[in-house]
C-alpha cells in the first residue's frame, strides 16, 4: 500500500533532466573528486629537487605516501558511496530545509567578510598594524550593520589603540609597522600613544 503511495507521489514529480542529473552528480562528487585529484597530483610535488638519499629502511617519502594513498582510497570510496546514495534516493524529493538554510545564510555577506580578511592580510605587512587594524574594524563593523559614524570611528580607533597597548605595549610583540612612509607613520603614532 505504502509502496503504491510512494510510486504515485514519485510519478507526480517531474523526472530530472540530464543536465539536472549531471549537476547533482557533480555537486556530490566535487569535494571527494577534488581530494582524489590532489592526492594523485601531490606526490610529484613532494620534494623540490630529486631525492638523493639512500635510506636504510623507509625514506622521507614513506610517511606522506601512506596517507596520500589512503586519501586516494577513501576519496574513491566516498565517490562510490555518494553515487550509490544518489542512485538509492533518486526517486525521493530533495529536502527543503537545505533551501531554507541557504536562504537564511547570507553568502554575499560571508563573501564580503572573506574579501575583507584577505584585504587585511595584504594590508598588514604593507601599511602596518595601526592603519590596517583601524580600517579592518571600521569595515567589519560597517559590514555587520553598524551605521552610526561616531560609533564606527570610536570603536575602530579606541579598539586599535587598546590592541596596540595590549600587544605592543604590554606583551612587547613586534607587530608589523609597514614599509616606507607607513613605517615612519607607525613609529610616529607609537610615540604619540607612548608605546615607544
Amino acid at each position: 500500500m505504502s509502496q503504491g503511495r510512494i510510486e504515485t507521489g514519485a510519478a507526480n514529480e517531474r523526472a530530472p533532466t540530464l543536465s539536472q542529473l549531471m549537476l547533482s552528480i557533480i555537486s556530490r562528487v566535487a569535494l571527494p573528486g577534488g581530494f582524489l585529484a590532489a592526492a594523485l597530483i601531490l606526490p610529484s610535488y613532494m620534494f623540490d629537487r630529486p631525492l638523493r638519499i639512500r635510506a636504510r629502511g623507509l625514506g622521507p617519502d614513506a610517511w606522506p605516501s601512506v596517507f596520500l594513498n589512503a586519501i586516494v582510497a577513501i576519496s574513491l570510496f566516498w565517490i562510490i558511496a555518494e553515487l550509490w546514495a544518489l542512485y538509492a534516493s533518486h526517486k525521493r524529493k530533495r529536502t527543503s530545509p537545505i533551501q531554507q538554510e541557504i536562504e537564511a545564510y547570507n553568502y554575499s555577506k560571508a563573501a564580503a567578510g572573506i574579501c575583507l580578511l584577505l584585504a587585511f592580510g595584504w594590508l598588514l605587512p604593507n601599511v602596518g598594524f595601526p592603519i590596517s587594524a583601524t580600517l579592518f574594524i571600521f569595515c567589519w563593523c560597517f559590514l555587520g550593520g553598524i551605521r552610526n559614524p561616531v560609533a564606527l570611528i570610536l570603536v575602530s580607533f579606541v579598539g586599535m589603540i587598546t590592541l596596540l597597548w595590549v600587544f605592543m605595549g604590554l606583551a612587547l610583540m613586534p607587530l608589523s609597522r609597514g614599509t616606507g612612509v607607513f613605517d615612519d607613520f607607525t613609529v610616529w603614532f607609537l610615540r604619540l600613544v607612548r608605546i615607544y
Partner: protein
Amino acid sequence: MSTFELLGMGFQNAFALSALLTIVIGLMLGVIAGALPGVSFVNAMAMALPFTYSMAPTQAMLFLGAIYVGGVFGGSISAIIINVPGTPASLPACWDGYPMTQRGEVRRALAVAILASAIGGLTSALVLSFAAAPFAVFALRFSQPEFFAATVLGLISVIAISKDRPIVSLLSLFLGILIGTVGVDPQYGVARFTFGAPAMQSGINFVVVMIGLFAISEVIDLIATNRDLRPSKAASARGQVSLRDFWEVRGAIARGSGIGSILGVIPGAGATPGAVIAYGIEKQVSRDGDKFGTGIMAGLAAPEAAKNATTGSAMVPLLTLGIPGSAATAIMLAAMMLHGVNPGPLLFLNDPTMVYTIFAAMILANILMIFAGIGVAQFFSTLMKTPPAVLGAFIILLSIVGAYGVRNNIFDVYVCLFFGLVGWVMKRTGFPTAPLVLGVILGPLAERYFMTSLANYNQDWTVFFTRPISGTILSLAAVFAIWSLWPVIRAQYRSVVLLLAGRAGS
C-alpha cells in the same frame, strides 16, 4: 614526597597572589568566552596563547587551565538564558535548562548548573591529582613503540568524535596528518611539500591552523547569519533557590561526575560526548525520565557535572603521555611546547612542583568557578548587547595577532587566514574540522615515533605488536575503532539489505 605533600606544595604556589590572580582572570575570561555563542573557550584559549609568552610556564598553564575550566561551564549560561549553547557540550543544558528559564526559574537553573559543574570539575581535578602520578610511573616503561601505539589510539579516537560520518572524519584526519608533513622531515632533514617557498620549510604550526579553523571560520559565520544574541524578556531573573534543590539532584551530579571523569581520560571523548551520554543515562535512571526535556533539574545537573568532569581527567593523557585528547588540551600542549616544557612521564620526575601546582590550581579553579559563574551570569545580559559585528572584528584581530605571535612571522598570518577560509568551507559543507586538527597535532608525533622505533629495532615491523604494552594499546585501538564503527556498519548493512529487498519485492 607523598601525593598529599606535593599537593600541599602545589596549593602553596597556587595561593600566591600572582597565581591566584591568573586563575581568577582566566576563569572570568573562560566563562565569558564560553557564554558568548561564536566565541567558545577553545577560541579564547587560542587567542590567549600570545599573552602567555611573557608568563612563566606554570603561570601560562594556570591561565589556560582556568580558561578551560571556566569556558566549559560558560557555554551553559547562554544555553540556559537564551537557548543558544555557547559550546557544543552545553547543548543538553538547552533541553532542560531553557524550559526552566521559560517557567521563570532562571536563577534556579543557573544555580543547579553552576553547582553541578563545580562538583563535576572538582571530582575530576581530584582524579587528576591522584591518578596522574601512578599513571605517569607506569608510562615510564614506555619506549618509542609504546608512544607510537598511544598516538595511534589518540588518532583512532577521531572515529568516536564523529561516528556518524567515519569516512569523512578519516579523510579529514589524513589531510591533517598530511599537512603535518609539510616542512623539513624529522629523520633525513629533507624538505617536503614546500613548493619552493623557504617559509614553508619550518612547517605549518598547529596553533596557527587551530586559530584559523576555529576562530576565523566562526566569525565569518557570525556575520553571515546575523545572529541576535540578546536574551528574551522571559529570561528575567526570578525563582527561588533552596538547598533542597541541590539535595534532590545529588544522585544526578554523582553519576554525571563519574561518567565525565572516566570519559575525559579517553582521547577524543571530551566534554560533548560526556554531557550527552550523561544526559542519556540520567534519563534512563531517573524516575522523571519521561519528563526530561520539560525542565527537570536532574536532566540539567547530570550533563553539567559530566562536561566539567572531563576537564581534569582530559589532562591525564596530556600530562602523562603528551597526547592531547581534545582541541583545548592541544592548545595547552602548544603552550607547554612554546615554553620548552615537554609533557610526559619524565615531567613528573623533573618538575613535580609545576605538575602539582597545576593540579592544585585545577581544584582551586573549580571552587572559584562558582563565584565566576555567578558574576558572569549577572552581567551576561549586558555583554550580549554588544553587537556581533564588534565582537567579530576583535575576535579576528586577536586571532591574527595570536597567529603572528607564535613565531613573529607574517607567513603564519597567511596560513591562519588560509585555514580560516578552509574552516569556513568545511563548516558549510559539514566536513569535520576536529579530526584535521588532531591529525596536524598528532601526525608529526606519530611519524617521529614510528620512524625512530623502526630505526631502533632494525626496521622490524613486528616490534609494535610483540612488545606487550604496545601490542595491548594497538589491540585496544582496534577494538575501539570497531566498537565506534559498529553502529554505522550495522546501519549501512541494514539500508543495503532493505534497498535490495525493496527492489526484489517490486
